[in-house]
């Protein structure tokens, strides 16, 4: 049957990408349908029970600054918060929370159910409605046809998912869920480049069988960080500790003796796993001289005894899992509640996508999340938000929007995917961002909220809060610029005493700020008590701008220099063969990728700067006759 209501946008999948996609689409006013195989698992954390981390926390803050759900849900479900890199500079500081899985799911479901313009429906999707080179809807297992102007696919590891535990393997989307086999078979018929990736999980353990007496506890941070710009610690549930333990030589011996039974080494697994999240058997083989590996014991929630031993993901047979787990300090009598497993799944080469996340061969079809070769809840959610937004914008006849590399980690993520593709599950790191100093957790709202408002993603409440903060930052920044202290003034002496520095001559507040010993929240009461009343987030913002001053100016200048070239548009049907001097190989690459701008062309691997100059010169030459 054909479903009577037609939608603007259909989102297939209710994970982290799917929820942000559906919410973003609906926020812009598009009538949106979220199709999931199971409403109970909306917002499910399939892997480790944590949100954020270095690079990932940055993404969460950006999603939040654009009105997304992830930060809010993490505040509602976080049972252990930390600021990573807290003793390093602001650009690499990052928030991470252990989350109670069920609290997280209910927070997400609550947000979804209360979102205007959003409809939920439970049915696995088996096929897409394709007319010509356009996608016009989705067909569910029962044969119900849902028609829409655009479809966002966020199918995670469900496309032809295959689980391995030793030599036993089975088809699954994740442990306990069936895979999307019919859709996968259908998708493989489409003109898209398909590949296989692999990821893994550790065995879960019953905490009552762990001996914590000799394990190192790891408490959350105090003061406790908050994820959402609109959040507060009052929203956080009860907080708990994590613990740390280590593998031993004996653990490694057990693993080494069983390597031939690992599907990773027998060749059974063809998918490529992430190098930064290796299985324990991978670590033992590749870093043979390391006698011990760290394991973080992460609680799964407040109402369960299950823990997630982060650091020992595996696809070894279950009997080996029991042996090696019990060789670990504190785990001598551990009971495994669920075996660890590796999962292989289909993904599509993201170089087949535009920056809007629309596929190039099929119009009105958008991809987000693991289907694009990424890993991680945050990476998925970030793409989901952009895909949902752009699907809605296409229906509304508006230009797509994707942040640039200098605006957001979301921009770095998408640009990396569509220009370079990926051969392993792609995860965000701060070192991927050349403008890292500009892209911080603390200023994601300053970078993105105004744009989000313009795009219709940011509601009145968030907008008002942002405007107040933004004004205050300006005000404090200006006041500080005018502030000078002179020798002889009591303020001068106070600063010298507090810092232990000899200042000797008059000093601008901005110069004082550059000294590592000086913190603005301590400085203000001494030299300008009337300014000390600003909100801590405002003072922090101004302090960071001061500490990074020269570097930020330089990065900004770089951005502007690059932008001139970056934004030069290349027509999709550009005839690279007519550019003299381009090598065959490079011409092939450009024809394959069809970069949208000169900047994208430059980032395609194998495209040399010389080739980019040739393109720039050619474009200039061919543009000349019109202006001459």
């Amino acid at each position, binding site marked *: 049957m054909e479903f009577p209501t037609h939608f603007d946008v259909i989102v297939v999948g209710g994970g982290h990408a799917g929820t942000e996609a559906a919410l973003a689409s609906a926020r812009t006013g598009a009538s949106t349908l979220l199709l999931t195989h199971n409403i109970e698992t909306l917002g499910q954390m399939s892997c*480790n029970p944590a949100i954020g981390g*270095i*690079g990932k926390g940055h993404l969460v803050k950006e999603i939040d600054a654009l009105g997304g759900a992830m930060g809010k849900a993490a505040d509602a479900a976080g049972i252990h918060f930390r600021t*990573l*890199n807290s003793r*390093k*500079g602001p*650009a*690499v500081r990052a928030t991470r929370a252990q989350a109670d899985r069920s609290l997280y799911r209910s927070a997400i479901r609550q947000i979804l159910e209360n979102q205007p313009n959003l409809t939920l429906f439970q049915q696995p999707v088996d096929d897409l409605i394709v007319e010509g080179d356009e996608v016009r809807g989705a067909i569910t297992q029962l044969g119900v046809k849902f028609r829409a102007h655009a479809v966002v696919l966020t199918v995670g590891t469900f496309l032809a998912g295959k689980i391995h535990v030793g030599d036993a393997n089975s088809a699954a989307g994740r442990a306990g869920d069936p895979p999307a086999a019919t859709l996968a078979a259908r998708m493989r018929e489409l003109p898209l480049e398909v590949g296989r990736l692999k990821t893994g999980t550790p065995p879960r353990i019953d905490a009552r069988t762990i001996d914590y007496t000799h394990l190192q506890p790891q408490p959350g941070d105090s003061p406790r960080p908050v994820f959402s710009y609109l959040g507060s610690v009052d929203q956080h549930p009860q907080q708990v500790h994590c613990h740390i333990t280590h593998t031993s030589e004996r653990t490694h011996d057990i693993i080494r003796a069983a390597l031939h039974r690992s599907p990773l080494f027998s060749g059974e697994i063809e998918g490529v796993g*992430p*190098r*930064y*999240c*290796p299985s324990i058997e991978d*670590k033992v083989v*590749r*870093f043979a001289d*390391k006698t011990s*590996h*760290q*394991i*973080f014991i992460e609680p799964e929630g407040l109402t369960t005894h299950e823990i997630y031993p*982060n*650091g020992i993901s595996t696809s070894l047979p279950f009997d080996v899992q029991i042996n090696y787990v019990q060789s670990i300090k504190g785990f001598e009598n551990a009971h495994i509640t669920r075996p660890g497993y590796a999962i292989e799944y289909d993904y599509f080469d993201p170089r087949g996508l535009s920056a809007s996340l629309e596929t190039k061969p099929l119009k009105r079809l958008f991809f987000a999340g693991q289907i694009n070769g990424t890993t991680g809840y945050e990476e998925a959610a970030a793409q989901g938000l952009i895909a949902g937004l752009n699907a809605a914008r296409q229906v509304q006849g508006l230009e797509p929007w994707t942040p640039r590399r200098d605006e957001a980690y979301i921009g770095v993520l998408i640009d990396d995917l569509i220009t370079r593709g990926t051969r392993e599950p792609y995860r965000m*790191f*701060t*070192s*991927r961002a*050349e403008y*890292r*100093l500009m892209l911080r957790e603390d200023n994601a709202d300053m970078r993105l909220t105004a744009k989000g408002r313009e795009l219709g993603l940011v509601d009145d409440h968030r907008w008002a809060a942002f405007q107040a903060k933004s004004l205050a930052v300006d005000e404090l920044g200006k006041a500080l610029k005018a502030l000078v202290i002179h020798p002889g003034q009591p303020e001068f002496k106070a600063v010298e005493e507090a810092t232990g520095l000899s200042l000797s001559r008059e000093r601008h507040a901005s110069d004082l700020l550059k000294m*590592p010993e000086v913190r603005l929240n301590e400085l203000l009461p001494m030299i300008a008590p009337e300014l000390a009343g600003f909100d801590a987030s405002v003072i922090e913002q101004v302090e960071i701008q001061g*500490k*990074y001053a020269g*570097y930020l100016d330089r990065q900004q200048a770089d951005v502007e220099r690059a932008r001139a070239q970056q934004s030069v548009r290349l027509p999709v049907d550009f005839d690279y*063969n007519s550019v*003299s*001097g*381009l*090598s*065959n*190989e490079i*011409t092939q690459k450009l024809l394959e990728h069809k970069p949208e701008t000169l900047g994208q062309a430059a*980032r395609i*691997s194998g495209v*040399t*700067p*010389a*080739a980019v100059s*040739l393109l720039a010169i050619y474009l200039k030459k061919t543009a000349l006759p019109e202006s001459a």
Partner: protein
Amino acid sequence: MYTTDTIAAVATGSGRAGVGIIRISGPAVPDIARQITGKTLTARHAHHLPFVDDAGQTLDEGLAIRFDAPNSYTGEAVLELQGHGGPVVLDMVLQRVLACGARPARPGEFTERAFLNDRMDLAQAEAVADLIDASSQAAAQAAIRSLDGEFSQAVNAISEELMTLRAWLEAALDFSEEEIDFLSDPVFKQRVRELLEAFDSVFERATQGSRLTDGLTVVIAGVANVGKSSLLNALSGTDRAIVTDIAGTTRDVLHEHITLDGIPLHLMDTAGIRLTDDVVEQHGIDRAEQALASADHVLILVDASQPVLPETHRLAKLNAPSTLLINKMDAVESSVKSALQDTAERFKEATGAQEVLFLSIKADEGLDALRDHLIQTAGRDTAVEGVFSARRRHLDALQRSREAADAALNRLNQGDMPELAAEELRLARSALDEVTGRFDTEDLLGKVFGQFCIGK
């Protein structure tokens, strides 16, 4: 490889010569070779045969050598026709080649293609030009060293180390929970220090080389009205500078390029340094000080008939090596000359000048000795082992790169914001990439994952 066109040019010099070579590069080479020689040539074999026109008439005869892509100079198919060196016969053969489907090459286009096809990097491509232009044996040797990639190798070695150090730093930043923290490791800072030394060594060798190609920058300086402009005119054999006996005549920095014994020199005449109320002249003096900052060698000119002014002593605070020139010896009584010798020695000691020369520009005395001295000065630099041919551009990039690496070390010592040290290392590497034109975004993370066990 190029898909579009084939280029051709006479590769040997103009004028009559025993042998003349026409070089052809591009996809039409096999076809052109067949048309002109009537044969299918074996690659990398010298074939002795006639070069014929479209009617089969012999235009010239000589050796034809074919190279297949990518094993040729340009990385494309290349044909070399080595015939007789007369301009008319060479032109006839060239016209025939063009009629067969090639177009005339722009200057440097063969090398440009070699660069574009990754047969050489930018520093090597420039070295080719330097080798062709080399005006002295020393310059030629330096260019060959760069062409062999010695300069590029030295730069790449630094670049590689910058990358390794940054990978360590990034690992500590992105994986702070992984028990791999180099920030406090003394070995890390030690390696940055060693890197700075490597920079200094490459920089010194490249500086010498840049003098061979770009020429030694020699700045003529001194207080007003000691004859600086006359010296410029005398050395360059022109009347470039206006010479009067009015102090403060020269208001801007004047440039002349001269060649002494095959060594290019870049002469700069500057405004006389003195206290002045004249705004324009003061501007000229500021520029003079800028010129001094860029000098490889400074000629400090003093008037033998006048007492040494304190402004001259200001010139003593120069970084560049200098030579003290005592001018206007013709205006000095012979009885004073020995006393002058004594004063000059003391002055030489005070300024750190390498040598003192007595001359009279007006009477053309001592100028030859000065020329010899300049040749020696430039020659002394060429005696350094392993000089690379390099350009100002390279030196500038090396300098910026080193400054960034130095700033990284300071940041590490300061300790509170290691991400700024990483930023400096990133800048250091991108400045270095300008030298070789190699901007490949090497997989930094690949390096991290290859070295450290990372991941929960």
